[in-house]
């Protein structure tokens, strides 16, 4: 019975992810966040960092791609529940027998995988600008890091989506949350440039550990011990975030059934 339920959930995740993908490819706002904005940042960063020498090109590819990943997570996955509210389907979603967390998981999975495309595009553009393909030095380890990144971003996305519904006050700060993560996660410059008091904040963010692992494996400077720390922290934070998101989703259901304020903006 439990196994059957599991496969039911897998089916829901698959269908939701496919449907989300189809909706996203027709939405110019999302296409901007996933495709255009990272490419503009690529061009800007390539120009600004061109005197750095060394492997700056692959640094820019990974960093710019991650900006697309985060912006998409914040604005697209973040709105995955509130979007249902705007079109009046949130109540139906909440009252269906499938847990809402499963549906939002499918949506976030689709968004994160789609956003990884921004890294592919960044790679293509930088190769085009330099006139030669650039190398990912440790492709196997890079691929594993991408998997851990995907898991940790999904868990982060679930928290953001649920938090925006539980507290609309939090969502009002959405526009201001994009660049702080670019900075704290060290997407395009090392966090050593930042004041020391911000370092613990960076350590609490899955995007920081994802950036560490992806930058290091792309540049070929990764060592297994350091990578294990990044992967382990991403996995640990994901478990914690999945658990917290469970609590937040229960709050959403409470809003629906007790307070009857679910549809309110």
């Amino acid at each position: 019975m439990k196994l059957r339920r599991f496969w039911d959930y897998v089916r829901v995740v698959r269908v939701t992810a496919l449907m989300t993908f189809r909706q996203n490819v027709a939405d110019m706002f999302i296409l901007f966040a996933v495709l255009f904005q990272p490419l503009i940042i690529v061009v800007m960063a390539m120009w600004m960092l061109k005197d750095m020498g060394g492997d700056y090109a692959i640094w820019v590819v990974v960093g710019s791609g991650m900006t697309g990943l985060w912006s998409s997570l914040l604005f697209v996955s973040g709105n995955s529940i509130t979007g249902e509210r705007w079109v009046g389907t949130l109540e139906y979603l909440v009252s269906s027998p499938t847990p809402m967390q499963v549906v939002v998981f499918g949506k976030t999975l689709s968004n994160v995988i789609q956003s990884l495309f921004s890294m592919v595009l960044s790679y293509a553009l930088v190769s085009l600008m330099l006139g030669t393909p650039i190398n990912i030095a440790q492709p196997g380890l890079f691929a594993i890091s991408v998997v851990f990144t995907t898991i940790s971003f999904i868990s982060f996305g679930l928290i953001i989506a649920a938090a925006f519904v539980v507290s609309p006050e939090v969502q009002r700060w959405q526009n201001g949350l994009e660049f702080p993560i670019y900075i704290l996660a060290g997407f395009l410059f090392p966090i050593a440039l930042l004041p020391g008091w911000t370092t613990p904040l960076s350590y609490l963010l899955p995007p920081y550990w994802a950036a560490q692992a992806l930058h290091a494996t792309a540049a070929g400077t990764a060592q297994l011990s350091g990578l294990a720390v990044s992967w382990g922290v991403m996995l640990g934070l994901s478990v914690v975030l999945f658990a917290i998101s469970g609590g937040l989703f229960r709050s959403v259901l409470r809003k629906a059934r007790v307070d009857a304020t679910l549809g309110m903006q």
Partner: protein
Amino acid sequence: MRKLWLNLKLFYEGAVLSYIALFRWLRPSTYLATKVLSPLMMMLFFVFLGTYARGAGNESFYVIGNAVQMAAMSGIYGVTMSITGDRWDGTLPYLFASPANRMALFVGRAIIHVIDGMFGVVLGFFWGVALLGLDLSQTNLASLALVILVTTFSTSGLGLFLGSLSLMTRNVMFVNNTVFFLLLIFSGANIEVATLPGWMQSVSWGLPLTRGIASAREVIAGKSLAEVLPLLGGEFLLGVVYVAIGYGFFNWFEFQAKKRGTLEAV
């Protein structure tokens, strides 16, 4: 005389009401996130990126560039949404059916955003001085104020132009976001215009902000108003050109929409 008075009244009321209409749905936290926190964080991001690229001691280049770039936040997003709002809220047919002076109505949409944009730029400079060590000791503040006013005006001119274009598309935010981010490259806020390829430099000098940012850098370095007047004059003229083109599009859209019955088509 009465007609002039009516047009002035229309200009004033249109300016105030469009601003209230745009922000009435906002709470202070939304305004703070969009107009205070987000620009500050964007400035910090580019200052750190620039410092990483060129080393310490070059912060002021990025601080000034990104502070003046904040004019585009109001000039592009605010102005465009003020114009497009009429279409989405269904008030455009009433507006076009009225005998109101179109120029007063059109330019009135931008005026409060010019003031709001100036506030944004001043705030950017405040952050620069308070957090990033921007030195204004050589600066004639009155000249800097004029630079800010002219640049905010010219950027709002671009906003009026984009607002007119946005009457013909469903993807207003896509257009706004793309132009705003492209300005980060072309305006010289983060990359010196002289280092760009020739064709990109030509585009840069055809856009608002470029001369405004260059003027601000020179005024802050201690140059007099007279010395930056050619740049500033060019920035002002560019603003006038964008307003004129935008107004032309606005009139063309009204004519075509009435002729073809596509006023509310999306």
